[in-house]
């Protein structure tokens, strides 16, 4: 056990003994996300670095405190990437970490084609609420020994334990990318995106905002030429396109600035335009709908649920309505049970996911 892990484990054991609440934190870039921040800060950044990376295995193992940018740079040098394009949300002076990235479980524009962060988690080393260092999953693509605890940690917001190390599947970067632009209504965009998704087009990102649909195509040069011809639209200059997708991923696009509450609605992709007051920006072929809206949280959540999805209060000054959609009784019983299995004293990130966890 390294000195850093030893010191983290000592802190956790002491907190468990004393019943002290701990707030797990990497760069703090996602402090805004989720529920309340409670407890003494346990900084994961002293446990840092890429532990193992062999590009031909398509797997990288990194410690929790590794800056996400450093990990992505190391992958980029070998022509590889984190295909789920996790948002960093880094500000000057604070850099996202790998541990925080997995704990938040957020994915970026490429999720539409490549899958979500949880789809790329292969293994994890966890420091549980008793201060024990536990290893789940591994560094291979296929592994069905034991319950899939490593994947369960994706999006758990640090409520189950300290993610010390994580193994992620990586993929080659696409040879070429091209962005196409179309002017159309939201309803037309949703219809087109769903029709295209049922055909083998190399679409790797799609947004609709303010009457403009943008598609990013990724793949071999010949395939992109053929797809562009079939799909139509006008080409966007490469540099502007790269900036645009980065701005969407990192929420630096002007849509995301300002103070009105930012809602994240996850719905089945085919759901028609939601009749909700506020400005929308669609991603993931229509399955992710960002909404700037001052509507009653209850109304929004009911609308999302009717569509077969859920609504998260992503950024807001007032989160008294709860960051995440409420769970039914059985779900909450199971989730509380899982929390207690990993963190029996309830010391980690209390209230970050739900007040009950």
């Amino acid at each position, binding site marked *: 056990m390294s000195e850093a892990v030893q010191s983290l484990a000592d802190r956790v054991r002491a907190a468990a003994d004393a019943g002290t609440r701990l707030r797990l934190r990497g760069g703090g870039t996602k402090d805004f996300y989720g529920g309340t921040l409670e407890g003494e800060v346990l900084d994961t950044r002293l446990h840092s670095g890429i532990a193992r990376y*062999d*590009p*031909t*295995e398509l*797997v990288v193992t990194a410690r929790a405190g590794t800056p996400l940018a450093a990990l992505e740079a190391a992958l980029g040098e070998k*022509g590889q990437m984190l295909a789920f394009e996790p948002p960093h949300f880094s500000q000057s002076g604070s850099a996202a970490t790998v541990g925080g990235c997995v704990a938040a*479980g957020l994915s970026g524009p490429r*999720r539409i084609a490549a899958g979500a962060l949880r*789809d790329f988690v292969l293994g994890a080393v966890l420091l549980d609420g008793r201060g024990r260092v*536990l*290893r*789940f999953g*591994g*560094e*291979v*693509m*296929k*592994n*069905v*020994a*034991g*319950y*899939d605890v490593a*994947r*369960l940690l*994706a*999006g758990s917001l640090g409520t189950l334990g300290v993610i010390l190390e994580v193994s992620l599947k990586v993929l*080659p*970067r696409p*040879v070429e990318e091209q962005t196409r632009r179309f002017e159309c209504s939201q309803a037309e965009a949703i219809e087109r995106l*769903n029709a295209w*998704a*049922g*055909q*083998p087009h*190399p679409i790797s990102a799609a947004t609709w905002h303010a009457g403009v649909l943008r598609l990013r195509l990724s*793949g*071999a040069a*010949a*395939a992109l*030429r053929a797809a562009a011809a079939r799909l139509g639209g006008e080409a966007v200059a490469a540099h502007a396109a790269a900036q645009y997708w980065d701005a969407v991923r990192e929420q630096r696009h002007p849509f995301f600035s300002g103070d009105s509450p930012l809602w994240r609605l*996850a719905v*089945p*992709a*085919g759901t028609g335009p939601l009749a909700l007051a506020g400005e929308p920006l669609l991603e993931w072929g229509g*399955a*992710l709908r960002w909404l700037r809206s001052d509507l009653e949280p209850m109304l929004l959540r009911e609308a999302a649920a009717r569509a*077969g*999805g*859920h609504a998260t209060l992503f950024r807001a000054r007032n989160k008294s309505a709860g960051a*995440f*959609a409420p*769970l039914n009784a*059985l*779900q909450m019983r199971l*989730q509380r*049970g*899982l929390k207690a*299995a*990993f963190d029996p004293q309830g010391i980690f990130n209390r209230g970050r996911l739900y007040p009950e966890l």
Partner: protein
Amino acid sequence: MGADERNPAIEPRRQQAVAAALRAFLPPQSVLYEAEDTRPYECDGLTAYRRVPMVVALPETEEQLRRTLQTCHAMEVPVVPRGAGTGLSGGALPLADGVLLSMAKFMRVLRVDPVARVAVVQPGVRNAAISDVVAPFGLYYAPDPSSQIACSIGGNVAENSGGVHCLKYGLTVHNVLQVKGYTVEGEPFTFGSEAPDTPGYDLLALAIGSEGLLAVITEVTVKLLPKPQLAQVVMASFDDVEKAGAAVAAVIAAGIIPAGLEMMDRPATRAVEDFVHAGYDVDAAAILLAESDGTPEEVAEEIAHIKAVLEAAGATRMTVSRDEAERLRFWSGRKAAFPAMGRISPDYYCMDGTIPRRRLGEVLRFIAELEKKYGLRCPNVFHAGDGNLHPLILFDANDAQELERTERFAAEVLEKCVEVGGTITGEHGVGVEKIDQMCVQFRDEELEIFHAVKRVFDPKGLLNPGKAVPTLQRCAEFGRMHVRGGQLKHPELPRF
């Protein structure tokens, strides 16, 4: 391999009581307890372990299933769920004091939505049937375990099944959006969603691959993909198995993710070629099958790239499938590898370890040494793209001594997989078969977490007990008895 430690005798009075309770709401033909009716359920695809269940229940509706679970829970009867019974790890091995819950009658396709690209099916629907039903829409369900014509989607969810295309298209966990079902207490639940995610912990991820230990599912929503316009496969020969392994790494290093990337060694290709005449090069030490799919432009570019990489890696012969018939013929050999072994040996025992690909040469040399040590043949088929090995030990189960040698052979291979940084099972599950090797892969603290997770869903431990996760006592016993490399652990301690 490890049989389980539970009591093997059926108690007639208990059997009568349980059958009577189930017949109160199940039709007579849905409750089996006469030995001639229950015997067909005595084993799954792993035939080395057999046990006749106390009672077999075959509910036909969700309401019947819910009441079956409630009744068993109230009477504290263990329940072993079963799909098509094709599993290779004994995950559906019955219990002599338990109800074998067959989901075979849940075989309807409930909904196909070609626009949303989802199909909602009951768990007894066969894997291949999903792709057949949605084919008119130009869609398919990607995971394709070799048993896909027989295995059910419910079993695929329980085992997190893979197949030959999972490097590019993922496992069951990447292709199932939602499951509905009942807890052991008969409470209905939905895990996952047709939306891209759900709030709270990802219970869908936890349920998939849980080997029937956490809940019983009644409905599965799968993701459908547009069928690639074209697929072509390159078949390449190598004069050395390790060169073939290095070629696989070279393909990945070149930034290519083939739709399928499979390897077979000479003993495997020879057995298969005699059986299905796939056109394999039986003189090669190993052959690779590398598939590309996509638009015609993508495939043309990728096939040319793959050929160039394989040639530079020392391929001695390469053939590209000219049409769909030839492509399917090349794959037919790989998919028929297991039955082909059945023709050249009375029995075969299939392993399922996964290793980091860079250790392939070392592991294959280790297996070759074990062939000599145990006097048993072991051809290898290998999902090369994702590191999942399927060595097949050939043996005769009627020879008790040979069976025992096979078990020791297999145990050594699995432990080698763990030692090189891999896992004891890539896609077949632990079941009863690899339960002792779980003690090698995981420490007591990790197994304790698994047991704690199980208790959250099933506090009384009634769902498929004795499978997948060993008790700590069992591991302690196994550790004491375990001989490794001719040496007991802690040889300084007195024994017996």
